[in-house]
């Protein structure tokens, strides 16, 4: 299969001038009067149709520059990019909206910028409006829209131009409430339809779950590329060495607002149709509390999660993560990963309990985060971050974070 995207010897440098006039001098004479600051250096890449490529790297590594070059909003300084197909980029949604123009006119303007003819725009216009849920407000100036309406319309335009390549920066969903789930479904539909996706994220979990090829960019160069698991592992180790791993980064299932807020702060649900966590109870040896003393290898830890499964949606899955004080995920468990399909009870509510007998974590303080995820385990409806704090004590002198089951033989 031929490559949909071919990148050869791609470099991007920003020109630094000692004086503003040096730039003018350079333009007039055609001779360089600048110093180069390389954001990307000698990138080579081939992406086939249907590939989902993940992009990881620290802030400032050059990920955004690469995405902008692929989205054709920036020109390469050296090398070439050949793209066979239409690109839709979910970068800075709605940046070219004009506040004084109506939603209708902004749809036509943005479609025209993306290269659609008026006839092509007319064909997708109804779908854009329907998907965005803007309704009759489409004829009002976008300056009167709420931020949610604004981003819904922008997302709807970006994903209705029938792209061959979709570029996603960070979030697998946009907006809030029900639209967050709809936007996630739409992105998944692109994957299912065999579209090529570029996905840049700090959520290593999502990158690993979604992508079939991962690039790790570091200081403007590809440091590692290949199957997700080894690249993600190497990158995760690198971050830990650099102590740059943000708390919860490995699981950080979704960047959308409803994932990071919610149960952690005790906020009430925002949308009655969406799944939500209603309660998290942690019991150690039958005693329930948010902060628990645990005896390593002795105490039984039972975690119960109640949730509302939402309406007209597949029953969600539940996952939980134990993390250390530095935010590093140490262990996890998930119904999807363990093959357990949840179903609501007679009262229409969901309930699941997980038991960790003789908890093998060694001494230390641990946090428990609980996630209510979609049936694919990718989109987080809600996160109960630090739902419980476990202060583990131990007898004996074992070191590390976990007491592995073992047998001595002589």
């Amino acid at each position: 299969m031929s490559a949909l995207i071919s990148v050869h010897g791609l470099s991007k440098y920003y020109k630094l001038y000692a004086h503003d006039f040096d730039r003018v001098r350079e333009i007039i004479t055609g001779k360089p009067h600048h110093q180069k600051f390389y954001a990307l250096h000698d990138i080579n890449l081939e992406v086939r149709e249907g590939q989902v490529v993940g992009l990881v790297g620290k802030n400032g590594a050059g990920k955004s520059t690469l995405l902008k070059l692929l989205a054709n909003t920036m020109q390469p300084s050296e090398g070439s990019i050949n793209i066979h197909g239409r690109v839709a980029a979910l970068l800075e949604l709605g940046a070219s909206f004009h506040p004084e123009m109506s939603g209708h006119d902004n749809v036509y303007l943005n479609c025209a910028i993306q290269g659609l003819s008026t006839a092509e725009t007319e064909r997708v216009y109804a779908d854009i409006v329907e998907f965005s849920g803007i309704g009759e407000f489409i004829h009002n100036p976008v300056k009167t829209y709420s931020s949610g309406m604004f981003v819904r319309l922008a997302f709807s335009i970006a994903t209705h131009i029938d792209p061959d390549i979709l570029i996603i920066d960070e979030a697998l969903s946009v907006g809030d409430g029900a639209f967050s789930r709809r936007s996630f479904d739409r992105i998944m539909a692109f994957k299912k339809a065999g579209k090529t996706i570029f996905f840049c994220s700090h959520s290593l979990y999502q990158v690993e779950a979604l992508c079939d090829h991962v690039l790790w960019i570091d200081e403007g160069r590809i440091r590692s590329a290949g199957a997700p698991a080894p690249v993600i592992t190497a990158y995760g180790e690198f971050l830990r060495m650099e102590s740059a791993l943000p708390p919860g980064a490995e699981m950080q299932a979704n960047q959308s607002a409803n994932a990071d807020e919610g149960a952690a702060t005790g906020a009430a649900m925002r949308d009655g149709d969406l799944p939500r966590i209603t309660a998290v109870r942690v019991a150690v040896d039958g005693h329930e509390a948010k902060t628990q003393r645990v005896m390593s290898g002795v105490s039984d830890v039972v975690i119960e999660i109640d949730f509302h499964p939402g309406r007209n949606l597949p029953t969600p899955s539940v996952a939980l993560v134990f993390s250390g004080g530095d935010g590093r995920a140490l262990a996890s468990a998930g119904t999807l990963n363990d093959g357990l399909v949840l179903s609501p009870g007679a009262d229409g509510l969901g309930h699941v309990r997980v038991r960790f007998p003789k908890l093998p974590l060694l001494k230390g303080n641990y946090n428990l985060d609980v996630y209510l995820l979609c049936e694919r385990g990718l989109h987080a409806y809600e996160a109960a971050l630090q739902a419980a704090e476990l202060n583990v004590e131990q007898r004996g002198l074992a070191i590390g974070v976990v007491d592995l089951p073992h047998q001595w033989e002589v």
Partner: protein
Amino acid sequence: MLNFVLRYCRQIIDGLTTPFVLSYRYRGLMWMLLRREIATRTSGTALGFIWPLVQPALQVLGFWFLFDVVYGMRLERGANFLSYLLTGMLPWLGLSEVLNRSANMFREFASVFRRTPFPIEILPVQLLCLPSVVYTAVLCLIAGLLFGALAVLKALVVIPLLMVWLLPLVLCCALLGLFLRDFAQGLPFILMLLLYCTPILYFPDMLPAAMRTWLWLNPFSDLMALIHAWLQGLALPLNSLWRLLGLWLLLLGPAWLLFRRSLPHVREVL
């Protein structure tokens, strides 16, 4: 030398064709940008699109009031001062508006192209579109009232041709306005001086003889001479025509070359 001339000619052809070819290719986008421009200018006003049409007429009315009513200027040879003033002033207002806007062109459209795959090369032509329509409409009306029905047909081509002639100046002003921000601040003053140095508010022969000889250095004098002759059905001053054409050919190639060279810098600067 031959190589230089060939390259020069290629730039001229490129500068004349590329913006218009791209404008045709992206005509849907240009139409939406035109609507965007109108929305920006007329948003919140009761008269809406009437304003861009009325504004030039009101400005002309102001000049007429000053020179005809207040100063009571009467010209020799029985010439009608009002018709002379209007014939020259309307194209000048259009020219002045376009050049002033071109100095801020990149900033005006920055939100559209900064984060999108936008063909920046169409912007100079985009800038000329609305003034072409507005000033052509007003000039046709005025020419019809002053010189009769035939002048309406003649007036149809005046502003569009003027705008095409302005293309190299638009390219230069856009670049200067972007890279040397002081230029945009000083340009209105420069244009005001040029207005006074151009026979718009007076006949050329009203100038002292010593100054009159310097008029040939001002291409806008040639422009005015051509417009007056064309609309009034007089013999066209061919010297003016060739000078304007020569200047246009001289400027278009280098202006286009510089514009193309600047494109990679535009997004970086903004």
